[in-house]
């Protein structure tokens, strides 16, 4: 026994519900990772633009 399953093959098959179970968790992981990446990118861009603006203000004669 490994976990609740008799073999790794049964773990992968999920009692013939494999596509539904793995599909659910796969879509959740993809969407949550996507929201994270998009949010982190927005923060990085905004902070970079702000830093550039600050630099320009400081170097103004």
């Amino acid at each position: 026994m490994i976990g609740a399953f008799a073999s790794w093959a049964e773990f992968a098959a999920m009692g013939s519900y494999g596509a539904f179970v793995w599909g659910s968790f796969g879509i959740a992981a993809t969407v949550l990772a996507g929201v994270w990446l998009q949010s982190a990118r927005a923060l990085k861009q905004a902070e970079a633009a702000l830093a550039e603006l600050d630099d320009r203000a400081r170097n103004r004669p």
Partner: protein
Amino acid sequence: MKRLDWFANPTRFLKLARAVQPWAGWVALAAGVSGLYFALFASPADYQQGESVRIMYVHVPSAWMALFCYTALAAASAVALIWKHPLADLAGKATAPIGAAFTFLALVTGSLWGKPMWGTWWVWDARLTSVLVLLFLYFGYIALNGAFDDPTRGARASAVLALVGFINVPIIKFSVDWWNTLHQPASIIRAGGPAVHSSMLVPLLLMALAFKAYYVWILIIRLRAEIAAGKLRAARLKDAARSGA
């Protein structure tokens, strides 16, 4: 309102947010990894549903978060409309896409669970339809928020929509009691305590904690981005005024 005022100061908030952000991220990761271990691997199959019951561990926390995020969105909108705290507007704007993502996941994983268990991807019953309405409320909020050149007008209009749409939250919660539906009634948050064995309750609560921590983590990232974008807008307006003069 003194206490709320204290938090509404963006500088103080940013300091607090930067301190909390890594903790929220690590809690989400730790609870998520251990939750997945139990959910997919160690917990038993259901005597009726077999291995398909494992979909519950992603479906139910997603649905909880869909309602939690909308409640947070409505609360932030109320604070923004009544007390005009600038951070409340941003909190609503930052919450909406996260709530929409969780609502989408609740619908898709529900569909993937419904096909093998009910024999259909979708039925137009009270629970499923009201959750679909919730998704459209999130979309409406996001669209309305961004529909004006002046961000304060967009924030105000979308906050009103969020408050009106809040009526849908109790409808979703009680839809399984009020109407005949394929969807099962509540088995965790109900009178008499949870009706689920601890071997299934533990992974469910771990996944719920992971999703809650993920929400806090992403909310802080999005809020920091919104605050930075606001500063950027103000600085550019000042620049434009200077070069115009």
